[in-house]
């Protein structure tokens, strides 16, 4: 029995699932994150809110631009409905103004968020380094 076709199909399926797992990351907003080694991707809390800060200081959540008040309202709403600690990940463009980051940090602290995570781009041949 010639199993060449079966092997091809299996490899196609493997490549498909590997590619889609990478493509899932494509939903991330494209930003030039600060290039730092970080502490590893780590594990989030019971729920995760990802807040992107573009280079012009615009806050982007779920691929939509939002005001600071809108972002904080989302965080409070998510925190109220989450049993465990809310995981807040901030992906700030390396050129984003510090005022935007600080305003968000102040708002998060006022909302009771005691710990957050800042996203970085891992330096190296497959990562950043620009």
């Amino acid at each position, binding site marked *: 029995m010639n199993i060449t076709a079966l092997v091809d199909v299996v490899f196609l399926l493997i*490549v498909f699932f590997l590619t889609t797992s990478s493509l899932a990351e494509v939903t991330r907003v494209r930003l030039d994150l600060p290039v730092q080694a970080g*502490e590893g991707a780590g594990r989030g809390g019971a729920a995760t809110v990802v807040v992107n800060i573009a280079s012009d200081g615009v806050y982007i959540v779920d691929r939509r631009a939002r005001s600071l008040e809108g972002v904080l309202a989302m965080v409070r709403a998510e925190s109220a409905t989450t049993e465990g600690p809310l995981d807040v990940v901030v992906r700030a463009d390396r050129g984003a103004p*510090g005022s935007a980051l600080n305003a968000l940090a102040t708002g998060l602290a006022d909302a009771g968020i005691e710990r957050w995570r800042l996203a970085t781009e891992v330096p190296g041949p497959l990562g950043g380094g620009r």
Partner: protein
Amino acid sequence: MIDIIFLLLIYFFLSTTLAPPESRLSPALRAERRDAGSSADLQPQVVEVARIGGSPGFRLGGRVLRGQEALTEALRDLPKEIGVFVRVSDGVTARWPAAALQACRDAGFGKVTYVPASGGGGV
């Protein structure tokens, strides 16, 4: 065989261009208040991230440090138990507090706290 090799090549090309690896820095978060702080609090070690002399830099104690490596070296000599506060002014871009946080981690600090400076600006 050739088909499989080409497919794997295509996969690695796509994965490297579409998903640059990300990592995370996980500082604690604390808002700075003008009336904040109790006298019982231990005075934390503070790294200030601000525009110093017109360009972004770090201030640790009375020392001005211009690079992440210099900051890391300076932090290595400090006691780690009481942690460190990274106080960030508005006048710098996001890469600078990230560099300061990374320097604190590289120097061995387990307790790192991000404090947005009220009033912003720099020197």
